């Protein structure tokens, strides 16, 4: 009797665990099938999708499906975000782990946690109504939608991720290494940058990569602040469109459920999924592969 009960419970629990695998399979199936449907349409070819840079599926007599303008927009925003978040995040992490007085730490850490908990739509509002007007003061060239404001806001969003993951990596470096370094007369700065930082490098790299994945997939900030004009540009004052931004535009528009435009949403989602998956896998792999092991 008890054995049967035990087995029944095991079955239920295993079912719940397998559900997570089903989610992954469902993502692969849905994105794969609908992307195949997309390429089966007459208006588009695989060559056009990966080989051209004009993305214009909704307006105009001729539709263009060149993914690179969306990818470029995505990387532009993510690049700005990383430029903002990596230096700030790493310095804060080193400060928290190597320099800060426990009292400072006990204020700064919760503040960062609060930053991490703020919904992304709030950052989008922040970028649109505060950052963009502020940027316009510096230069006339900024549009009411631009890549820089969105990028900075995404940077603020991923700052706590980089800080907390890197700080974790720094803190697992054993104290004996620091003591050894100080004992040889090194300053805290030398110890941090020549001993602790290299020892934690794999964890820090993986933190940056995971944060980059988050920046690429971020949706609400770019939907509000980056605009909806896909183009290949490196000018951060321009209005651009990211892959996620395009998906939101599609979700808001009244597009029929069967046109090539509708399927293009799945193709973009598949591209986004593959990109973020690569980043996540790479981040996890680096952390495991290059981890320095100490007794």
């Amino acid at each position, binding site marked *: 009797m008890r054995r049967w*009960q035990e087995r029944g419970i095991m079955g239920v*629990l295993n*079912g*719940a*665990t*397998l*559900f*997570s695998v089903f*989610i992954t399979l*469902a*993502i692969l199936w*849905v*994105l794969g099938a609908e992307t195949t449907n997309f390429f089966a349409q007459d208006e588009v070819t695989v060559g056009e999708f990966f080989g051209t840079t004009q993305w214009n599926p909704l307006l105009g007599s001729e539709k263009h499906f060149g993914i690179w303008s969306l990818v470029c927009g995505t990387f532009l925003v993510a690049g700005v975000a990383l430029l903002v978040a990596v230096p*700030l995040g790493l*310095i*804060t992490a080193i*400060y*928290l782990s190597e*320099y*800060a007085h426990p009292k400072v730490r006990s204020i*700064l850490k919760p*503040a960062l946690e*609060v*930053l991490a*908990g703020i*919904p*992304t*739509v*709030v950052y*989008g*509002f*922040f970028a649109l*109504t*505060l950052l963009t007007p502020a940027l316009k003061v510096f230069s006339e060239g900024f549009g009411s939608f631009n890549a820089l404001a969105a990028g900075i806001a995404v940077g*603020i969003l991923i700052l706590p991720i980089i800080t907390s993951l890197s700080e974790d990596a720094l803190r697992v470096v054993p104290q004996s290494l620091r003591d050894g370094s100080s004992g040889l007369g*090194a*300053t*805290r*700065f*030398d110890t941090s940058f020549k001993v602790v930082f290299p020892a934690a490098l794999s964890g820090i790299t993986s933190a940056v990569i*995971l944060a980059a994945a*988050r920046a*690429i*997939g*971020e*949706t*609400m900030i770019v*939907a*509000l602040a980056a605009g909806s004009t896909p183009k290949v540009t490196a000018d951060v004052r321009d209005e651009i469109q990211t892959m*996620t931004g395009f*998906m*939101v535009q599609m*979700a*808001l528009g009244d597009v029929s*459920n069967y046109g090539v435009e509708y399927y293009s949403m799945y193709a973009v*989602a598949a591209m986004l999924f593959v990109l*973020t*998956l690569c*980043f996540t896998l790479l981040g*996890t792999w680096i952390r495991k592969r290059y981890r320095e092991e100490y007794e």
Partner: protein
Amino acid sequence: MSPREKPALLSDKKLLQERRRPMSQRHRKDMIFRGICRGVSGMSASLLVILLVTILTEGIGTLSTQFLSSSPDPDPLIAGMFPAIMGSVWLLVLTMAIALPLGISAAIVLEEYRPKGSGLRKIHGFVQLNITNLSGVPSVVFGILGLTVFASMFGLFGNEGNPSAEVGVSFVDQFYNEGDFVLEVPVSAASQPEAVPIAGMRVFDPAGKAYELNLVGDDAEWPEDSALAKRSLRSWDVPGRIKDRRWWYFRLPFGRGILAGALTLMLVILPIIIISTQEALRAVPSSLRDASLGLGATQWQTVRRITLPAALPGILTGAIIAMSRAIGEAAPLLMIAGIVFITRAPGNLMDDFTAMPLQIYNWAGRPQKEFHDLAASGIIVLLTALLLFNAVAVFLRQKYSKPLS
């Protein structure tokens, strides 16, 4: 010089100052970096302050009980977010009701039932890697998945306007007669043809009172008597079919309703719940488990009576973090619900809905300043909810975090 006397160099402060070596470059670097660190950390903290102050000053003016209790309106002066608040409450309750049992079960399998065989261990590792990857999938992709799987169900069950299965719905054919009275004829199924006016058939007024239909001849005058006009129709009058949904209304496919939204949010927070529950279970000292197993308890008895209760505060904290994520998540809901004009709270699981982050997005995306103020007010409400969640989490952590070993 007697040994009691201090050397002149140490006693003379001025001399000491003069003879001290200049600070080495390494130490100067250290000092400078310390300064940079303080500056940067202060900046991150002040970012938070700027963000909150901006939103407070913009939003506090329009925040009122009227704002909380009225529905969205094209006129920003009377617009409110009551339907959005109710939508978020529905979503949160449904999402957590589905995600918590699933997530905790999966975490128990992954932590407490570690397999011993090498083949099973590979599967175990694969599932673990899979969950890590799921937590990295952008939420908008989950939105697309939810749209296909839950909202339209691959198109297998017809579409939302013409679902292949529905319960909890009644149909009524509604006539407007020449005297501007409404007459209703109940219909048993959606497939039944439209009602045709026949003299003597039973009709109802909107209040539900039954009448006998009076058919007015094609050439005859419209009756003067209002009691008669109330139950009169011409033979050419055509009804409109009205759908009346009960609170337990259910259909396949789910359509862009609140259940599809909650299931999609469940996909987003499931990895978070699994990972945080795993951490909570891992923190339970294995001596407790070993003692229970050693006393002859089965694996499940150990989990249910020993491990789960010990890990409960950690699990609850994780659940609250997941709730905070769910209440602020906008992208997947946007894929499911879009931006629709909703003026009332959801009444059943399939109802169209809006949620707080969607309403904020809607207002923030408009060009007028008045709507930005409304968005800021909405953000204050949302952040207050988040603050409450976090306060509960901190309280739980403080109250139950006693050492177990």
